[in-house]
């Protein structure tokens, strides 16, 4: 799903697009260096570690000698990423490119490795914070907030309470995802469907990216917000941190983050504090492309029936996209994957690959251990039904008829074959179909023949 990858990775691209001075300022914070390190592909992480204590620039040859033959494409990806994020500095000396680690990054990462980092805020003492929620309560709260937000996002009318985001903010979030024609209810676009089928962390990053790009227009510094978010992922979930330790911009952001379910705001007698949830601390895990590691809930059987052990409305909406939901029990959604429901999904722009990947990634642990987690006849049939809609392949072409003689016809068909453009010919009736790209060449050739 190349398109989905672009959306999910865009947060790091946004970080990379910050001007050099701001990026250097960001690298003064040890935790941001750690977050950036974690977001790199594995090969890039290795290069950073190896270069950590090397002060002189290294030419690209030794770097390439560290690799085996089939690693060259990964090498290129890693080096590009490192240069994009300004972690590697390129020094062109006498036509040889040499690399050196960004010195701010290097110093701070070294300090972080040897002595570890301390956050600018400490958890508040137990005496002030009366009853902290347990981790289950916190997880349930985070989950609920996020789902409520998503349901409102796709304006399905199923959300129980509305979030405190202003309608203009919601419209900005919905910009790429919904499309509204006059007098019609807003419909999800193709990217909207893809968005719903992504996993939670990827969706979170998309929303946060939109939020941060929007905040630039309101005069808040992008780099500050990014720094705060990356720092947030290193806080301890379940511990209370006082709101007094935040700057004004950060306080505004915290209120919005509470709506997304990343933190929980609580008030005591005199003080108020925020508690990060697991959603916030898992943010830095999802910065790379690694396989998603969460519990699934869908069981697909070989008779095309589907059982989803979930009570969430959001899951029900997602399953309704491509399956026919038959019953909804308190903890179970029963449905079937049918030809009509799939045709519906294909018309809305969802591809078979996305559906199959969604089913595989969200497979219930009981079936996830089996290989394959989704029965092959189901996945094959989904793909076949998709190709059903693509049965006809269209190539723009021209039809030639009424040749004066057989020689001209054969010369023309050889000419077309030479240029790889002959699609069909009928030798008896002297007709042929030629690709549109070489139509002009054919005309020249035939005119030349006539003379």
């Amino acid at each position: 799903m190349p398109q989905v990858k672009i959306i999910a990775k865009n947060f790091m691209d946004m970080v990379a697009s910050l001007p050099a001075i701001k990026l250097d300022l960001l690298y003064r914070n040890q935790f941001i260096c750690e977050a950036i390190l974690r977001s790199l592909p594995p090969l890039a992480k290795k290069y950073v570690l190896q270069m950590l204590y090397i002060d002189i620039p290294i030419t690209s040859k030794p770097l390439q000698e560290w690799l085996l033959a089939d690693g060259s494409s990964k090498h290129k990806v890693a080096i590009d990423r490192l240069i994009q994020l300004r972690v590697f500095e390129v020094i062109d000396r006498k036509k040889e490119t040499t690399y050196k680690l960004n010195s701010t990054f290097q110093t701070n990462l070294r300090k972080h490795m040897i002595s570890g980092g301390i956050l600018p805020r400490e958890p508040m003492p137990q005496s002030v914070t009366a009853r902290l929620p347990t981790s289950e309560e916190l997880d349930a709260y985070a989950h609920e907030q996020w789902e409520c937000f998503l349901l409102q996002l796709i304006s399905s009318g199923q959300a129980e309470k509305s979030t405190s985001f202003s309608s203009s903010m919601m419209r900005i979030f919905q910009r790429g995802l919904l499309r509204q024609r006059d007098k019609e209810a807003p419909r999800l676009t193709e990217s909207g469907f893809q968005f719903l089928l992504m996993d939670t962390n990827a969706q979170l990053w998309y929303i946060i990216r939109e939020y941060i790009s929007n905040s630039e227009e309101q005069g808040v510094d992008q780099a500050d917000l990014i720094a705060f978010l990356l720092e947030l992922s290193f806080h301890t979930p379940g511990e209370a941190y006082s709101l007094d330790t935040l700057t004004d911009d950060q306080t505004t952001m915290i209120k919005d983050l509470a709506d997304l379910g990343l933190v929980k705001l609580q008030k005591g007698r005199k003080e108020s504090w925020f508690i990060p949830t697991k959603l916030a601390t898992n943010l830095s895990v999802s910065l790379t492309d690694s396989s998603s590691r969460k519990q699934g809930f869908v069981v697909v059987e070989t008779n095309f029936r589907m059982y989803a052990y979930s009570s969430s409305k959001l899951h029900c909406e997602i399953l309704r996209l491509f399956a026919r939901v038959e019953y909804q029990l308190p903890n179970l959604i029963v449905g079937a994957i049918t030809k009509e429901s799939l045709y519906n999904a294909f018309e809305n722009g969802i591809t078979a690959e996305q559906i199959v990947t969604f089913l595989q990634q969200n497979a219930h642990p009981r079936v996830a251990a089996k290989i394959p987690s989704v029965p092959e006849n189901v996945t094959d049939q989904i793909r076949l039904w998709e190709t059903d809609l693509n049965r006809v392949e269209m190539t723009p072409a021209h039809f030639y008829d009424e040749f004066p003689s057989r020689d001209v016809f054969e010369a023309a068909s050889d000419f077309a074959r030479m240029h790889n453009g002959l699609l069909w010919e009928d030798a008896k009736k002297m007709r042929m179909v030629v690709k549109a790209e070489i139509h002009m060449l054919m005309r020249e050739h035939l005119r030349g023949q006539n003379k």
Partner: protein
Amino acid sequence: MASAPSKLYADDVSLVVVLLDTNPFFWSSSSLSFSQFLSHVLAFLNAILTLNQLNQVVVIATGYNSCDYVFDSSSDLNRSFENGRMPVMCSSLLQKLEEFLIKDEQLSKEEPEGKVKSSLFSGSLSMALCYIQRVFRSGALHPHPRILCLQGSPDGPEQYVAIMNAIFSAQRSSVPIDSCYLGSQNSAFLQQASYITGGVHHKPQNLDGLFQYLMTIFATDLHSRSFIHLPKPVGVDFRASCFCHKNTIDMGYICSVCLSIFCKHHKKCSTCGSVFGQAQSEAASASDKKRKTPET
């Protein structure tokens, strides 16, 4: 003996079980002091935990008489401290290490002179494999485990059987055993372990730069190992030790039923109990040996 087939790893989340050699007989005569060694190792452990939020580290101390777990990054106490991780990790690890060393010394008994002062490597290897088995059984979402041995003590031939059994079970469960030998000679056990399980064996030439060796070679996660050049085995010492006296031997007798190795002729195999046939007469065997040597 072919080395282990390579496995495909989807991501770079790793569980590294570090076997730390704390044999006082070795460290008292080593050029690198134990405290310097520990500072290299602690920075390396922090680097592993920095690489990925889901990485885990377990440290098992290999003592002279006993072995014990000294640090586990996934235990509840250690897990909640992402912030300020290094000080907490250092203090808890060092404290447990000190308690372990005191206990280990108390277990010392009078030893006969001339005995090789080796550490209890077989014990810590078995403990590591048991921990890893538990991780395998914890469900589908587990980090990819590997074992890193930081050894300096010489090999104890009496541990041959136990170590080979542990190596083969590691090979079976596809757990690579990396080894870094810090002593002056070569360790046949470590070389064999890394060769058979598909891990990396290296003997650093300059112990002051141990941190850089650890970062360059041993911090490579299993996913990246298929793309990166790592030190290859130069020559592996495959010699065995006999089961009866625990001496290292080149030529010996093997039971045809269970493949146990003996240096002298026995009437009965001590492992499986099968009875051996009559020994050839001394003269005939001596002349056999004499005949064979000119040919080889």
